[in-house]
């Protein structure tokens, strides 16, 4: 080993530890016995216990939060896939007046400053008596992820040679059949990466649900987590257990699909 190689590997190791530490600390604190969490000098070796988890899941309405989070996430992703498939097919394969404008609109909508629009959303929802509404929240998340979904699927559809479709049509398929049998099977990677993006966006969203849904029965997991920490301020073991429960699905999905998430500059890519 040359000294340069040793230095590089050492730097990489230190960086790896720095980046993974908060994730590790969350997991390990969630498995620590109460007595060892509140010690002035952190304990690094301990017998793991699951005692913090019942505290986290035992909060009033916990399963309501879970159900709400799943509803808005799955609903937004499915809606976005359906609507985006139709739109991206038109953009990639057809000529029509206003196509360029639509492409530009989709690009701009990808950068929509949702975080800064919460006040006006509150006013609109309030005027329409739609506060504390799970359907409205789902609809907002759907529009949040729609532009990215259209953009990504459009790329995938455009990459399928037109000749394949034409051949299918010559063989007697209608346009719809040609799409279903020829293009759709080739879209799997695109559907995966857009679903991942949609899932993470909706799962993470905090500002909208904070302002629109003050009623606990209509809230989602990100709010549960912040309120949990306020209520259980000093119970760090339970708070970390709650964080772990919230983060774990995302971490697992991400690790599985990391190859799709990395590489290729996609505007508005998945980002924490």
């Amino acid at each position, binding site marked *: 080993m040359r000294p340069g190689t040793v230095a590089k590997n050492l730097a990489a190791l230190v960086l790896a530890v720095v980046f993974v530490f908060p994730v590790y*600390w969350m997991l390990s604190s969630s498995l620590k016995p109460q007595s060892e969490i509140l010690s002035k000098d952190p304990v690094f070796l301990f017998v793991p216990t699951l005692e913090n988890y019942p505290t986290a899941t035992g909060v009033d309405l916990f399963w309501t939060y879970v159900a709400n989070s799943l509803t808005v996430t799955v609903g937004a992703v499915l809606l976005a896939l359906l609507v985006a498939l139709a739109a991206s097919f038109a953009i990639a394969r*057809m000529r029509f007046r206003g196509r360029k404008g639509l492409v530009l609109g989709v690009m701009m*909508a990808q950068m929509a400053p949702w975080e800064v629009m919460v006040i006006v959303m509150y006013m609109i929802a309030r005027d329409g008596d739609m506060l504390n509404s799970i359907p409205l929240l789902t609809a907002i998340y759907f529009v949040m992820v729609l532009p990215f979904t259209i953009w990504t699927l459009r790329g995938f559809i455009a990459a399928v040679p037109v000749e394949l479709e034409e051949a299918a049509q010559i063989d007697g398929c209608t346009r719809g059949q040609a799409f279903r049998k020829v293009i759709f099977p080739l879209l799997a990677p695109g559907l995966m990466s857009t679903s991942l993006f949609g899932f993470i966006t909706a799962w993470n969203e905090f*500002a909208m649900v904070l302002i629109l849904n003050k009623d606990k029965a209509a809230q989602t997991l990100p709010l549960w987590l912040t309120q949990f920490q306020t209520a259980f301020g000093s119970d760090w073991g339970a708070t970390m257990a709650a964080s772990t429960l919230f983060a774990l699905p995302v971490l697992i999905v991400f690790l599985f699909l990391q190859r799709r998430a990395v590489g290729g500059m996609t505007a508005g890519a*998945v980002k924490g």
Partner: protein
Amino acid sequence: MTVDSQGAVSTASTDAPGSAAGTSKTPPPPAGPKNVPKPPRGRRSLPGGVLPYLLIAPAVLSMAVLLLYPLIRNVVLSFQQVGRRELITRKPEWTGVENYTELLGDSQFWTVVVRSVVFTAANVVLIMALGTLIGLLLNRLGKKMRLVLSLSLILAWAMPIVASVTVFRWLFDEQFGVVNWLLRTLGLSGYEQHNWFETGFSTLVIVMILLVWGSIPFVALNMYAALTTVGSELYEAAKMDGANGWRTFWSVVFPNLKPFFLITTFLEIIWIFKAFAQVYAMNLGGPDRGSETLPVFAYIEGQGQFHYGVAAAISVLTIVMLIAAMSFYFRLILKQEEEQ
């Protein structure tokens, strides 16, 4: 990138094998080779065909109702006075540009603007510099170490926002936080029970560490992906010419990756400037409203102070600042599309 299939008019329809797309169920071939029915040429249908409009209608309508309309309403609301009384009567009062003049004459607003701009600049400089360095390092590591570092970066990247805020509050806890312990162990004094959330500035420093930690992976991993497209022979050539690492970077790597750098920088500016959850969940914009950035300031003016019109005006001004950054970003993207 943009594969524009519209332009290519293929007159002779080539007989592509039916199994090419992996579908085994090809419909029976037409009766004879002579009377091949012309496939419907929807793809080249004249502008005015109804099908494309039917296909895009759901997308266009939903974006119009839930994105465009709120944006317009936001501008309208910023010219109205809506407080507690108007909330109940549901009759907003038109006040013209009063919200704007009030804001522009308010020292607190300017404090928040300066704070947001400085905060964004500091974050983006750190993210880009460190992200680039780590990307370069990834490129020069062996297979095993690269995997270790990449996995660690991916875990940091994937951490959900609110979960990472909660964890950072625990890391920096005044009594039992591991950070105070570490600084004590390193022999620094004053970290016996140091409260990291005592001032707005200190709170924002923690938020910055969180944002930099969470944003570097995106830059570093994409940087590494971009570096692999720059052929290694270029580095070799630079080395042969006796260029050191610094020179190689500025004369070989940077010019090749300039579009990547610019696009990523603007993306980060936009992301950091409108970050809400990280700033708000860390300390609710406190203490004494000292860690509010523009999006949080707008939220608190509206929800906490019941100044909805003023809050809308803050939103409009924030969006105007964002649009400036976005227009640069789109120009870059469009230029890149043209070059490819």
